[in-house]
């Protein structure tokens, strides 16, 4: 899986590259538009992560070139601007996804993964499992060690989101935006309350705690537990 990262801010490029390499992707980093065009012409990529502010030709130009030569190549835009007008313009130009700086790296990884999955046939798994915790999406049931656990709709959605990204630390902001909606933005204490309730239901009375708090970052569900 080869990713082209077009980013002129050296330090941003460095941590994104490092992080993506840790996820076992192959990453080429270029710092300007011309080199980006050159790379796009000579190599093949599965995803392009594109910063809009480039020193020579703008990210919009690069995006236009990509759409002219290769319609299906997924492009994730990174930008420091977040006005709605910009967003609309980017999607009109053919961006597939959009992240505003500063972003959470985990979120970037999740979005890249989603873009990579896009071409493939949807392999939505009906049953998610972490250790002895099982979530059945079609039956809307959660069991731990065969014991049925009663969850509210929101608790179920929260657990589903955590289990879909098992092993990964999800920030409160990401959880709010995915499980609730944008209007709850900033209301991260609601996540804490729901996680506490959820923890009571799935971890209480079990020796291995699955739901883990990562200070400063967020929450994660994983086999190692806390």
């Amino acid at each position, binding site marked *: 899986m080869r990713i082209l990262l077009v980013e002129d*801010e050296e*330090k*941003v490029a460095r*941590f*994104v590259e*490092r*992080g993506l390499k*840790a996820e076992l992707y192959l990453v080429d980093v270029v710092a300007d538009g011309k080199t980006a065009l050159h790379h796009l012409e000579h190599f093949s990529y599965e995803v392009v992560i594109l910063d809009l502010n480039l020193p020579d030709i703008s990210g919009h130009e690069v995006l236009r070139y990509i759409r002219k030569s290769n319609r299906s190549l997924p492009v994730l835009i990174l930008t*420091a*601007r*977040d*006005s*709605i*007008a910009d967003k609309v313009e980017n999607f009109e130009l053919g961006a597939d996804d959009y992240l*505003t*700086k*500063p*972003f*959470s*790296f*985990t979120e970037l990884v999740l979005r890249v993964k989603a873009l990579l999955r896009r071409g493939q046939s949807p392999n939505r798994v009906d049953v998610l499992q972490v250790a002895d915790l099982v979530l059945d999406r079609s039956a809307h049931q959660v069991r731990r060690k065969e014991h049925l656990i009663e969850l509210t709709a*929101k608790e179920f959605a929260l657990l589903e989101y955590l289990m879909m990204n098992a092993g990964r*630390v999800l*920030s409160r*902001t990401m959880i709010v935006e995915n499980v*609730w*909606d*944008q*209007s*709850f*933005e*900033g*209301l991260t*204490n*609601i996540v804490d*309350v*729901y996680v*506490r*309730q959820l923890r009571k239901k799935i971890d209480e009375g079990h020796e291995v705690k699955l739901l883990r708090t*990562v*200070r*400063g*970052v967020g929450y994660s569900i994983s086999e190692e537990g806390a």
Partner: protein
Amino acid sequence: MKANRSIRVKLITLYVAILTLVFVCFGIYIYAGFKTYLTRSLQQTLTWRAQQIASTFLQEIPTKGEAFVSNEIQTRYAPELNQRVIRIADVHGQQVYGSKNSDVLTRIQPELVSGPQVESVPVSSQVSLPSGERLEVIALSRRIADGSIYTVEVGAPETDISTALAGLTWTLIFGFPFLIGLAIGGGYILLGRALRPVDQIVSAAEAITLENLRQRLPVSKTGDEFERLSSALNRMIERLDESFQLTTRFAADASHELRTPLTVMRGELESLIKEPTLNEDLAERIGNVLEEAVRLTRIIEGLLFVSRLETGEAQMRKDKIDLGEMINGIADQMAPLADDKLLNLCRKITPGVLVEGDEIRLKQVGVNLLDNAFKYTPEGGQISLHVWAESNLAIFSISDTGMGISERALPHIFDRFFRAEQARTSRTSGTGLGLSIVQSIVEAHGGKVRVESQEGRGARFRVELPLMKLQPAAMMEKTGVAV
């Protein structure tokens, strides 16, 4: 409008006052001049008469006798008929001739300068008749051939003069109100016409707000003061526009510039915290820094959001929203937060209160206000949500039994980064922008948010939004359902 009228009134009052002054001065001047002229011409006539009598009859006194002369004067001048008083006397004051009433005359005997001079300078004086009438008198001395000197006095009443002056006075008195009336009426119309551009400038200036600073006032190419005024105002608006754009651009630029360093900080901290070798203490400290970096991000985004709303740059969707349904949804989702603090959340929601707006943004208003209420209400408190419609307003109110807001803090709670003392000391991790965001969103929807509170006795926030106007068909449908 009011100012315009008062300028009119002021100007008219001022120039009517000036006009009155001028008119009074002019009247006095004319009166005095006319009186002087009439008196002079009467004196002139009397002098001629006296000279005529002196040169015609005095010579004849020694030759033909006083009686003849008296008779002659009586027949020639008929003083009684002509309302004249005539008297001739010699140098000793001995009367030669005297018409009726001549005894009131002054008996002035103008001195003849010695030498060859024959006739004295005429001297004028005034006396009163027994009837009270004033007489103008001219006295004249003359030396005749035999060397004896006589004085001729001729008098005439001033009645003509007073009659003429009275006529003048009445003309002036009647002319004055007419003139002033004309001046007021004409001035009102003329000033109204002249001040009309002010009205236009005022209404155009009223229409200019922060959202349309690009607009300019109409400039009439007349070259007069109003053209200069509107051009000057336009230049001022231009400068305002520029500085305002500068401020907005500053907010955008500043947040833009802060984004990249924050991205690096967050990215590096995030990767650092994942290091498996990290001990727990270090992980917690890094986590703290990361939390603050995330909060900083939210502050920057909030600030940018508020300034975008204020400049009208942010676009609002126009969804049809059932306010009660929306608030119910929020309350359902946030209920666990209330349970967590043992708060009693009670709702009184009227269904079918519709508003038009951006659903995400309006939900944000509800979430922020509810979150605030939860934050500042101690355990076991009560929070009440009300939604209802009132005339053309959709109203959502939320009251709590929390610590309330001090009177001093109350006017400032919607200011950016303002925190009341109580809020500052309590454990919060907000951005300081929550209520500013609430206010900006509500105002961007053409609504208002109000707050009333007494310290220690809770607070009540009240959001008023324009009620969505239903189409007639929908209205009928609605009444149908209600029936």
